[in-house]
């Protein structure tokens, strides 16, 4: 097969995949008797046309950057981490314990502690499947899926039987003290000029961006990243070079789990301010789409996370103001994963064909 120019590979392939996904989504909307253009309008207006909308879009974006990075770093080491969801929920547990058990004097200290705790819990939840993969050869995809279910059950147990305050009916922890409440964008000097109302996007956004930069640095500037990528490309070659496969599996999955866990700082500490059941709301899975869409590069991940933030906020608006069910966003998510992850060869073949067509015309 002919090859594509690098820029086409990086920019055009995801773009075309996105267009496919959008076109099919439009057909689906049409098929359920709604207007695609109307839907798009609602989505754009509700998520991008007001500071308030952006406040939500960026809130989702923050979560998706974390989970997208989690998938990305594992992916470079050849691991398909589908367990972001469970790792994020465990991260939420870490946040809740950090916020509830210790009376923090100021949100900044609490943020640090909660972040460490969230990362540690997520990392541990990823480390178990990683250990089983490294030492016992278990299939990482299926074990991480199982760990999602086990995490959900564990959280239910803890919320119902252990952490629920007496007299409360819904399975949730107590509210975190006011002192650990994270500043939302409307409370940050400078940003408050744009965000004038209470929005859920909060300081965690900056942690997410820092994490993206750190992941880039690790992957392409450090020895660890070099070894991870080499191992991800070829395990036998890594062995030859003296790179320990078990170690690479453990490290990549642990970092991945830590990143997934960190997303809970955004939603549990920054938004809900208590741990609820299913707090991650599928963000762990969206990380897969975000990573694929972002071509497993932190810059791409950030951009794709904004796109999915828009999709999620827009989708919520659809659910709110139109007859289109909120599930539309799951459909779009599935289509994006399908086209960028599984039908990428098709997309690339199409582009190669278009390119050669263009070349022939030039010659003629």
């Amino acid at each position, binding site marked *: 097969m002919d090859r594509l120019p690098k820029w086409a590979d990086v920019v055009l392939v995801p773009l075309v995949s996105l267009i496919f996904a959008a076109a099919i989504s439009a057909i689906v909307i049409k098929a359920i008797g709604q207007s695609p253009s109307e839907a798009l309008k609602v989505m754009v207006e509700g998520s991008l046309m007001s500071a308030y909308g952006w406040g939500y879009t960026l809130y989702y974006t923050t979560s998706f950057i974390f989970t997208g990075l989690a998938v990305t770093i594992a992916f470079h080491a050849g691991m398909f981490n589908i367990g972001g969801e469970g790792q994020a929920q465990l991260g939420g547990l870490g946040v809740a314990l950090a916020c509830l058990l210790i009376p923090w004097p100021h949100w900044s200290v609490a943020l640090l502690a909660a972040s460490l705790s969230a990362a540690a819990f997520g990392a541990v939840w990823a480390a178990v499947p990683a250990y089983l993969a490294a030492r016992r050869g278990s299939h990482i995809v299926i074990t991480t899926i199982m760990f999602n279910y086990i995490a959900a059950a564990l959280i239910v147990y803890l919320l119902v039987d252990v952490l629920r305050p007496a007299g409360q009916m*819904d*399975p*949730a922890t107590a509210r975190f003290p006011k002192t650990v409440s994270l500043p939302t964008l409307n409370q940050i000097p400078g940003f408050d000029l744009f965000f004038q109302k*209470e929005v859920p996007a909060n300081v965690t956004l900056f942690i997410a961006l820092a994490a993206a930069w750190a992941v880039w640095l690790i992957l392409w500037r450090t020895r660890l990243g070099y070894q991870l990528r080499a191992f991800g490309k070829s395990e036998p070659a890594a062995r030859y070079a003296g790179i320990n496969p078990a170690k690479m599996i453990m490290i990549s999955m642990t970092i991945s789990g830590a990143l997934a866990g960190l997303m809970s700082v955004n939603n549990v500490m920054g938004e809900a301010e208590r741990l609820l059941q*299913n707090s991650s*709301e599928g963000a762990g899975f969206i990380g897969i789409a975000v990573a694929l869409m972002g071509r497993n590069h932190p810059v791409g991940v950030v951009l794709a996370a904004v796109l999915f933030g828009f999709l999620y906020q827009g989708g919520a608006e659809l*659910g*709110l103001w139109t007859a289109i069910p909120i599930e539309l966003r799951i459909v779009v998510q599935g289509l994006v994963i399908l086209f960028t992850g599984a039908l990428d060869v098709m997309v690339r073949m199409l582009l190669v064909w278009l390119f050669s067509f263009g070349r022939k015309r030039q010659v003629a």
Partner: protein
Amino acid sequence: DPAIIYDLGGKFDKSFNEAAFNGAEKWAKETGGTYKELEMQSEAQREQALRRLAESGANPIVMTGFAFGDALNTVAPDFPDTKFAIIDMVVEQPNVKSVVFTEDQGSYLVGMMAGLASKTGTVGFIGGMDIPLIRRFGCGYAQGVIAANPDAKIVLNMTGTTPAAWNDPVKGAELAKGQKAQGADVIYAAAGGTGVGVLQAAADEGILGIGVDSNQNGMHPGKILTSMMKRVDVAVYNAFTEGDKLTPGINVLDLKAGGVDYAMDENNASLVTPEMKAAVDAAAEKIKSGELVVHDYMSDNTCPAATF
């Protein structure tokens, strides 16, 4: 415009949320007005939904279910000019109306009905999520059963401990089959969408079901003994009618106020003998007059007639 937010079961759960939906529809038909509605998809969305609706200018905002309590507690102060109504939960905020029902009383009546109708002397109760509110249903029911048949055996099951328990018909059906195997021939489902599975299984197995919240007698005509009606529709209708002049505070809808009742219609006419009806109606009168006091589980977290 007023707005309503349904809980996880969704507005067509044939039960709790559907009752709320019916109330809203009734209001819309009568006044020609429009309202916004929203179905919860996940636990974590509650606050966003509330904020977004308040933000959009909806007033009053009615929500069905205790699970909104915590979110409402934080949102209500941010929108002092918006009125909120919450059903099944008490939220003490100056702009919130809390509507609660005496499910124990209604359940007592259908419990009596079950005790009278049972041939095996064993009846069942299947609750949704295991919370004090649902135990209040079960406890009232058990008292009614014992009142009608002091020797009766009552099999109690809860579907789960999370909101998913409101929407698990498979589990509901399996629990119903299990209760039948233990001899139950009348089963009361107080479980939201899960109840659909319970009533289906009861109908399949040739025993009687008892519906909840809405009048569910029509779901399996001739196979549902009666339904414990909790007039969520009335609560919603009233809140919508009051509009932005909604009176805050606690509003208890009891048997006397018509907040709870048992359902009679052509679907269950053949199942309920005049004697049964007479006995139940007599008890209802006593409750209304205060002569008969049904023990409320939530008052002290104990039940004289059943152990959970």
